C-alpha cells in the first residue's frame, strides 16, 4: 500500500504538537467502512489477500490515504453485496468516513472516493 508514514501535524499549540500518520487515518476509515450495510468486504489486492491468508488482520486493507497540505484524500476499494444501491451505499460510506476521520483526528477530509471493485455472489442463487 502506497502510504507514506510521515506524521502530519494537526494542530500546533503552545503545549506541544499533535501528529497523526496516514496509517491511522486508514484504519479509522477502514473500520467506518465495514460498519456500513451493503459492504461485503474490502478489496485489498493481491498482497492484502496473502496477508489475510497468513492471519494478519489489516484494518486499513483496501484504503489508500493521501495527505496533502493537511487535507486528506481517501480512496476506498470495496466489494458490495448483490442487490444494494451503490450510490446510496457509497454516500453513507463517504459520510461516515468523513465524519469519523474528522472527529477522531481533526484532519479535514477533502474527498472520499469509492471504488467498487466487485459484487459478492450470493450462495443461494438458483442456476449453475
Amino acid at each position, binding site marked *: 500500500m502506497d502510504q507514506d508514514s510521515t506524521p502530519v501535524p494537526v494542530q500546533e499549540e503552545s503545549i506541544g504538537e499533535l501528529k497523526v500518520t496516514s496509517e491511522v487515518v486508514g484504519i479509522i476509515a477502514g473500520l467506518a467502512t465495514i460498519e456500513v450495510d451493503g459492504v461485503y468486504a474490502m478489496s485489498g489486492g493481491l498482497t492484502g489477500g496473502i496477508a489475510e491468508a497468513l492471519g494478519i488482520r489489516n484494518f486499513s486493507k483496501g484504503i489508500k490515504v493521501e495527505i496533502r497540505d493537511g487535507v486528506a484524500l481517501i480512496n476506498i476499494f470495496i466489494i458490495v453485496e448483490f442487490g444494494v444501491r451503490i450510490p446510496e451505499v457509497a454516500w453513507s460510506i463517504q459520510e461516515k468516513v468523513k465524519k469519523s476521520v474528522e472527529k477522531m483526528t481533526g484532519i479535514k477530509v477533502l474527498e472520499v472516493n*469509492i*471504488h467498487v471493485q466487485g459484487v459478492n455472489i450470493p450462495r443461494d*442463487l*438458483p442456476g449453475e
Partner: protein
Amino acid sequence: MIDMKKTRTLLLAVNLFITTAIGLFGMFLMISAEYTRSLGNTLFYSRFLDTNRLIPFLCFFLIVVVNMLFLMTLFRKDRTKEAIRIANPAGLIIISAQSVETLAKLEAQKMEKVHDIRTRISSMDNKALVEVMIKVPPMVSIPEISSELQSRIKERILDTTGIEIAGVQVIIDGIFESQAR
C-alpha cells in the same frame, strides 16, 4: 508518479524474465546431455531423471511456474480504467467494469431458461454497453427470452448503480442440451 510505477513494473518484468530463463536453463542442465539426445527413449524407459537430479529439477520447475504466474498478472490487461464514474459532493464513485459484468451475470442466472452465461462490457466511453452470451434450451422463443433478459439486466444495473446503460446485446451462443436425457 505514474512514470515511477511504469519503471517499477518494467524492472519487475525484466527480473522475472531473467529468473525464468535461469530456471529453464537449470531444468535443462538437470536433464543430462546423453539423455536429451534421445529424450523420447528415456521418457519411455522412465530413466529421464535420477533421484539426484529430480529435486533440483523440481525446484527449477517451481521457479519457472511461479514466474509465469507473476508474469501473467503483470501483462494482464489493466482494466482499472474501464469503469463507470459517478461524481457526488463528497468525491467520486468508481464502479469497475467487472462489477457491472457480475451484476449482469447474476441477474441472468436468475432466469430459468438461460444457461452458460458469459458477460462482457464492450464499451465504456460514455455509456456502458453490456454483451451477454447465453445458451438456450431448444423449443423456446428466443426473442421472448432475449427481451426479458435485456430488460431485467438493464433494470438491475439502473437499480444498483443508478446509471442507465446504453444497451444490452444478447448473443445466442448455442442450444443448451441438458445432460439428463
